[in-house]
């Protein structure tokens, strides 16, 4: 096994710990950085430092934030009566891209996964309950992933929250635009049929 000088080997090892990067990729990236201009490498280093120093979780919704609150929580134009519950901060970006939602979010930081031992205590559910009164929430949109864990999380939250007398809704599930019925799986198609609605003649 070739031994590289200490700092070089350290960087290769660190790179190799990143998700999806194996030993060969780690080596390739490291040598690319070594060859590239110093300022490029410094920019990367500074970006990493900046992220770790300046980004934390929003105290209200647990989205990633630069201040106490995230950009969305700080925005006065957002409606306050509606909360969209998502699993990860990444999901907010997906929902925001649609431009269809103007309320605030709540990031659970994961989903219920009994086999991996993730229970309700590990998620930000207590914090969500606290927000309901504080912000006078009328509607809660459960926007977790439509997989087994996400559905279980949505059902758990629905069971917990429905007795509180606010409207709890679940995002619809159906066929993707541009999809093909022939290749649709039974469960998705069955749900799409159940969730059908009168076609508007606008």
């Amino acid at each position, binding site marked *: 096994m070739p031994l590289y000088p200490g700092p070089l080997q350290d960087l290769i090892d660190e790179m190799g710990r990143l998700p999806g990067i194996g030993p060969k990729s780690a080596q390739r990236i490291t040598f690319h950085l070594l060859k590239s201009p110093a300022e490029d490498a410094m920019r990367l280093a500074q970006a990493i430092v900046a992220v770790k120093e300046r980004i934390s979780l929003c105290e209200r919704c647990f989205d990633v934030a630069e201040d106490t609150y995230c950009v969305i929580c700080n925005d006065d134009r957002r409606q306050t009566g509606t909360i969209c519950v998502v699993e990860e901060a990444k999901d907010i970006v997906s929902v925001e891209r649609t431009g269809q939602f103007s309320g605030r979010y709540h990031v659970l930081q994961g989903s219920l996964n009994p086999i991996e031992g993730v*229970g309700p205590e590990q998620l930000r559910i207590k914090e969500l309950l606290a927000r309901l009164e504080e912000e006078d929430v009328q509607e809660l949109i459960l926007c977790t992933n439509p*997989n*087994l864990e996400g559905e279980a999380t949505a*059902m758990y939250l629905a069971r917990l929250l429905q007795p509180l007398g606010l409207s709890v809704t679940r995002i619809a599930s159906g066929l993707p635009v541009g999809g093909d019925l022939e290749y649709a799986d039974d*469960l998705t198609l069955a749900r799409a049929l159940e969730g059908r609605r009168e076609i508007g003649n606008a």
Partner: protein
Amino acid sequence: MSLFRDRGVVLRTMRLGEADRIVTLLTESHGKVRAVAKGVRRTKSKFGSRLEPLSHVALLGWQGRGDLDIVNQVEVIDTFRAVREDLDRIGAGLSMLEVVDQVAQEQHANPALYRMLVGALGALAQANSPMVSPAFFLKVLVLEGTAPYLDGCVSCGEEDEALLVAFDLLEGGVLCRSCRRGRPLSPEALVLMRRTLGGGLAGVLGEPRSPLTDEVMTVATEAMEIHLDRRLRSVRSGTLA
């Protein structure tokens, strides 16, 4: 290096890379199989919901040289929809999947275990019976060759039912008052366990949830944990019960 066709139940899935998943299945004739399903996490994936845990599927796979096979095509046999849309039943179903994942061996066909799992999930889909998962645990113990002895005291042979008051899987089954070890066991729970293993399963599954079925669930869970030498996270996380 060959294509294979088999039927199986998806036990668990793990994210892999950008949009792929590693799927663990219990198949009928290839034992436990770990396979990569490419692109499942994309919205337009051809696999869609088919490779979610609990799904009973027919699959066409490619067995490569490495550890992981590749999933080529999947068709659903049964999604057990009633199970996955009821929080209690998801918990029961997942606990069975967890047990099977621990017990099943790769490259080692176990058709009996496969049939039991499919049967148990089918029973759970039909009715929300609190006895499905404990009965499944006990039956798996029998299949594994560690059937608990319920006919008399494992230590002294005492057969008087009134005296059989304790259960300890390390000892191998029930114990009488003078030899007792392990956890206490009520006479009604003993009867229910005997019926479960003695051909009265259909009647047992009709039991409504009660402190008695909870007791059998606890006994069966502990016995299974001793056998696996590991906690059953899906039962213990207490999430869904």
